[in-house]
Every structure is written in structure tokens, then in C-alpha cells.
């Protein structure tokens, strides 16, 4: 699509903030227009990385699960980890990548609970890996409009 989507969103957001919002009354509607403009700006920020961050994260989680299979003691969980780690993303629509990400992050919670209960050096190393991945996951999702 040309002009580029990010450029269109940028122009629309600037227009809403600068040209439209100041002339809208009452203040509640003005704030709504302003919020809509900020939403467009956020979509613009997210747009370029929207598929990449999901693909990267899903791959990172599958790699983590592959490492975890030798550490966890629960056979059912181990089997689910093996199955998940053998998967890959073949459908790059956002809805499909999100569905995969939701399933992987649900499994990550299960793994995290199990690892916390294990008393071994390997479990502690894996736990550290889980935290590192969780920290990276917040970097991938970070938006510039947040206060932190």
C-alpha cells in the first residue's frame, strides 16, 4: 500500500491532534479525539515490528522449551514442551501468530511453576533463562508513550 501505512497514520494523527481536536467541544469529545490520535501514533509505532516481534518471541519460547525438556520432571509437561518446541510459525497473519504466542505463553507459565518447585542447579539456570526471556518480552512490546 502506497503511500506507506505508517506515513498515512502519522499524518492522520498529527491532523487530529493539531487541526481537529482544538476545535472540538465539549472537552470530553475533544479528549476522545486526542486519544484516537495517540492510538494512531501507537499503531504506527507497532506496525513495523508487529509480525517480527511475534515470530522472534515464538521462536525464542520454542528454543527455551527445547532446553527445558531435560530439566522438568513431570512427564505430561515434558511431552507438551517437546511438542511445542518442534513447532514453527508458517502462517504469518497476526491473528495466527497471536494464537501461537498465547499458547506458548500459557505453556511458559506452566513451565515456570514447575521449575520454581524443582531443587537443582539445572532448574535454577532454566529459571534464570525464563526471567531473561520475560524481560526481553517486555522490551519487544515497549511503546514510547508509557511513563516507564
Amino acid at each position: 500500500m502506497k503511500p506507506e501505512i505508517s506515513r498515512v497514520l502519522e499524518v492522520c494523527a498529527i491532523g487530529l491532534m493539531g487541526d481537529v481536536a482544538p476545535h472540538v467541544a465539549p472537552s470530553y469529545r475533544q479528549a476522545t479525539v486526542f486519544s484516537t490520535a495517540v492510538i494512531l501514533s501507537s499503531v504506527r509505532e507497532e506496525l513495523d515490528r508487529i509480525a517480527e516481534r511475534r515470530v522472534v518471541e515464538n521462536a525464542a519460547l520454542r528454543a527455551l522449551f527445547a532446553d527445558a525438556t531435560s530439566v522438568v520432571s513431570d512427564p505430561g509437561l515434558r511431552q507438551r514442551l517437546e511438542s511445542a518446541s518442534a513447532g514453527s510459525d508458517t502462517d504469518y497473519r497476526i491473528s495466527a501468530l497471536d494464537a501461537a504466542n498465547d499458547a506458548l505463553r500459557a505453556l511458559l507459565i506452566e513451565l515456570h511453576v514447575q521449575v520454581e518447585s524443582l531443587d537443582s542447579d539445572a532448574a535454577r539456570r532454566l529459571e534464570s533463562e525464563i526471567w531473561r526471556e520475560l524481560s526481553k518480552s517486555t522490551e519487544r512490546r515497549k511503546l514510547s508513550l508509557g511513563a516507564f
Partner: protein
Amino acid sequence: MSELADRIADYARHRLGDAVERVDGVERIHGGASRETYRFRLHTRDAGGSRERRLILRRDPPGSLIETDRAIEFNAYRAFHGTSVPVPEPLWLEEDSRWLDHPFFVMEEIPDLEARPQMVVAPPYDAHAEKMGLQKWTILGEISRADPQERGLVGVMEGVSAEGAWERELSHWVGVIDEDELAPQPIVRAAIRWLRAHPPPPAQKIAVVHGDFRTGNFLYDTEGRIHAILDWEMAHLGDPLEDLAWGINRVWCWARDDRVGGLLPKPRAIRVWEEASGLRADPEALHWWELFSCVKGQAIWLSSAREFQDGKNQDPILALAAWMQVNAQDRAALELMGRLT
């Protein structure tokens, strides 16, 4: 809005009789996410002549960010009106939906002031950040110092033991996350497990907890004076450290530096609160409540996303709040758990 003005006028006549002439100037404003908020002018006439009063209507919406009891909010305003904790005067609480379709309450408007949180770091307000911070944390100390019995809030708000305050609050907000999350939340789930495994000491006292005491929920002027504490919709009885921890949460660091609420460095804010409240912020207990505040915050942002997604309330501010704060709240939780790399 003229139909709403007429209906408000009918209600005012129900309260004040024929002295009510008319209602005008009805305008919806942003005022907390759980209720529709309107300002209006009430015109009355008595032996002394005509009077105009600027008032605020807070009405329950069909869906809201936080499901709360408007009677608790109204009674919290009533409890602190006329004390060292500045609040608008509450006038009428109406539970009967026949007047305005939903329950509501009416209170005084304190006009021509700023409330937006981001403005504390913008001119001319930023020059008064320290002054505002000292007032803000002193006022919170006054709230924490207050005796709920003397303020008439025992019986209005659900009682809780000093030992049980943390568990009740944690269970409540975990329940909200269980119900409203649209996607798995591994960070907040880890935080919840840690909180349950490391309970805090009993509360020093059972205090009035504002429930949402932060920059953004008070009115201030260009000289940095705070005129009113608003949005008592989540007020309850509990551990006073809950309010302190919520107010110093990282997600309210609007100046993007170490000043909590965009106003004062965290150690100073805590000292001011301790002096005003006469209570101690034990570091370990406060740490527990800070991490709890990340769980509570996440519950609110996830509910916001759910409300918008399900179409119960499609104010864009709900989508924006979820986009902006879910990630910031996760990062705040990671930082508190020493896991933000």
C-alpha cells in the same frame, strides 16, 4: 444535553423543591474511568435572590473500567469533607435509577484547575513539583492517619483484620485478572506466586485506603497548590501501605526519572508520608505492597482491555490505557523482582 439538563433539574426539585429554577451548562467531562462525569450549573432562587452553583454529576455507566459501589465513593467524600484532606462537598447520593437511568451522585465542582497527570511535568506546573509532592504525600499521610471509626466509615466499608488485609486485596485483584485477561500473563502470574509465598506482616493499623491515590487524581493550580483529592471509587479499609505503594508505582513516573508521581524522589515521598501519618513504611512490607500494586494495576489494565474488546465501554481511553500500561506494569513488576535486564 438539554434533555439531561431537564432531568437533572427535576431531580434537584425533588431534593430542593421549588427553589430550583433550571439546570444548564451540562457537559460531559473525563473524570475517572468507572463513572460518567458531567459538570452543570444549578440555578436556584430564594428570598436572597438568584444563585448559581457549579456541580458535578457522577453517574454509573453500562460498563466501566472498575466496578465499584458509588455509595462508598460518596461516603468517602463525606467522611473527609471539611478536614485537612481537601475534597469537594458531596451533596446527593441517588440509588434509584428512575431519575437518570442509572444510580448517581452529585457533588460540588471545583472549577478551573488542572488534573491531567502529564501536566505536572509541563510548564508552568513543573516549577512547583516539589511543593506539590510535599502536599500530595502529606495529604496521603493524613488519610492514613485518620480513624475510620471517627470518619464514619466503619460499617460503610467492609471491615478487615490487620492480618487479613493483604490476602483480601490480593484475592480480589487476582480474581479480576482470572476473569478479564485476554491473553496469558506470565509476569504477573509469577508476581502473584511470589506474593502468596511471601506474605507481608500484619497492617500497623486498619486505615482508610483511597485505593487510587496517584498523580492524576487530584486538582491543582498553576502555583502548585492541591485543591481536591478525587476519584475515591476504589476506597476501602485496609493496610495504609497499599496507598503508599500504589502512589509510588513506576507507571506513574511521568517525568521519566526517579521522581514518583513525577514530583518527588521515592525516599523523600516515603519520609513525608511517614511524618504525616505517624506510621512507618517498613521496607520489606512496602516492597510486598509495591509488587502487589503491579498486580492490581495489571488487573485494571487487563479489565480495561476486556471492556473495550467486549464492547461494554468503547471509550478509546480504555484501549489506550491497556496498550500503554500493560507493558509498563510488567516492567515495573520485573524491576521490583530484580529481573529487569
